[in-house]
């Protein structure tokens, strides 16, 4: 098993994920959080934003399809006053340019680039040069760049690829109480899978 190199990381404060990732999402690197809908990608990205904003860092959310829910983010602990939200109304081209601008501006603790609703065949057509450009922009900085997508796209440009899977829903008393999700590190490959539980109600 390849040991994860010691990097400056952005912890999620979720024990299983932090252990799996070697402490958290690497700063100065690009991490892909991949998986199908309802696999917990967004909840995990919000957990990272919550940690970063709670420590006083400014973060950004580049939202290709305008799916970000401020209420969910606030409930997850994200300090909204330290979050720059960019809505791209479904334009992948604009989203790519906005992500580039945000990353080039520098000074952000974490940048989430949400491609979660972009069809995999469309996302695959993004030139590899674009991912390397994003990676190059965050290298040597304290910015953790998180890509939320259905499938890995950055591949070689990514420092980490985390695969998320659905693990069932919890119902109780006629209420959706929560959801179980599974996370596996695909780059570098680790055989371990961690289970995460998310609550739907307070």
């Amino acid at each position, binding site marked *: 098993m390849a040991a994860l190199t010691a990097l400056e990381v952005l912890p999620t404060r979720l024990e299983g994920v932090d252990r799996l990732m070697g402490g958290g999402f690497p700063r100065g690197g690009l991490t892909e959080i991949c998986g199908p809908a309802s696999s917990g990608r967004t909840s995990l990205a919000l957990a990272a934003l*919550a940690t970063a904003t709670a420590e*006083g860092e400014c973060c950004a959310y580049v939202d290709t399809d305008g799916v970000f829910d401020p209420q969910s983010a606030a409930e*997850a602990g994200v300090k909204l006053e330290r979050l*720059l939200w960019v809505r791209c109304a479904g334009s992948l081209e604009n989203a790519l340019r906005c992500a580039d601008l945000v990353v*080039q501006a520098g000074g952000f603790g974490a940048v989430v680039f949400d491609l*979660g609703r972009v069809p995999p065949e469309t996302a695959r057509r993004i030139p590899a040069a674009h991912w390397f450009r994003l990676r190059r922009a965050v290298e040597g900085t304290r910015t953790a760049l998180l890509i939320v997508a259905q499938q890995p796209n950055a591949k070689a440009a990514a420092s980490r690829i985390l695969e998320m899977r659905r693990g069932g829903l919890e119902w109780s008393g006629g209420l959706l109480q929560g959801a179980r999700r599974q996370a596996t590190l695909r780059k570098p490959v680790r055989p371990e899978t961690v289970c995460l539980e*998310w609550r*739907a109600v307070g």
Partner: protein
Amino acid sequence: MYACAHAPGRPEALEILAEFSPLVEQTGKGTAIADLRGMEALLGAPSQMAETLWRSLRAVDPEARLALAANPDTAFYAALGFPGVTVVPPGREAEMLAPLPLTLLIGDPETLDTLRQWGLRSFRDLAALPEHELVARLGQSAADWWRRARGEQARPLRLAPAGLPIRETLELEDPVELLEPLLFLLARQLNSVCAKLAARGLATHEIRLTLNGRTRFYRPPVAIRNPRTFLKLMQLDLERRPPGEPVHSLALEALPADPRVAQSGLFTPPRPEPEKLEITVARIAALVGRENVGVPEILDTHRPDAFRLLPPAWDGGPALQPAHPPQRRLALRRFRPPKPCDWPRLLREAERMAGPWRTCGDWWTPDAWDRDEYDVALPGGAAYRVFRDNRTGLWFWEGQYD
């Protein structure tokens, strides 16, 4: 030495003197006095000071007048009384001011008439009389006139407030139609405005650009004085909202403010540089629209998905806070606008559902809402939120739990 610049009707006199000294008095419209004491090492002897100041002043108004003297009032009367440049050597104030008419010194017509009847016409005539006798006949004001006529009146300057706007205007003989030459002109104007701000040790938190009488506002989140930042903001704004007609006049007005003083601490988390962030937000706004970029703020209402976006203002945030474990909350990815839902089909296909949860509000306004929400699980584990709009009876997918 004190310098008095007199350019009737031109407010630039104050701005020109302010470039040389922070201690400037706005004595009248178009007249200003600057305290240049202690600046000999920088500006040279009084004659060199006069030459330097005169070059700047003459560029604004060739008819302007300039006088340097050891006290403010002597400089003031010399500037009003003599054309061109006058340097009053220390100790020779009374001699230099002697030929000036008393109308410069005294504004009251009755007093002037009295003095004329006594045969007094000039500063020399008044200065030659005994001070006590004048006070006995004309009151305490006469002592003030007497000292001024002799060039002996010393007083502190009534300093102009630092917040006076800095203006640059330009009238064009040939209107400018293209953006590139307009930006070239704007760059010159901005350089001049920012240089004046820098000379006063100030910055600006608002610049107003007036093109053909229409004003645009540029308000960075912190006070800055970098002309390149403002030029980029103006370029992005003009590309997004062109003037719509050839530009024949442009004016810039900067409202001065104290510059940002920021000392990064060892334990302070890094933030985007305000100037760079402002340009980044402007660039993004040019791509996706101003309404689609900003800091979200949840509105104080129970209406679903009620928020607004504010411009980021992250200068000097609160100190480092202890990090709490994040809440493990299931996030919702909203569909905007909500997608129509085939409810009968969903009832057949849904693996499990919970609800309804009814919310309604603002029933007293045309913008009321009334809906029943359901959490729905589809085969395979995907979870969604759907709702029925009770006002229309239609069903919608609101979002997806992720």
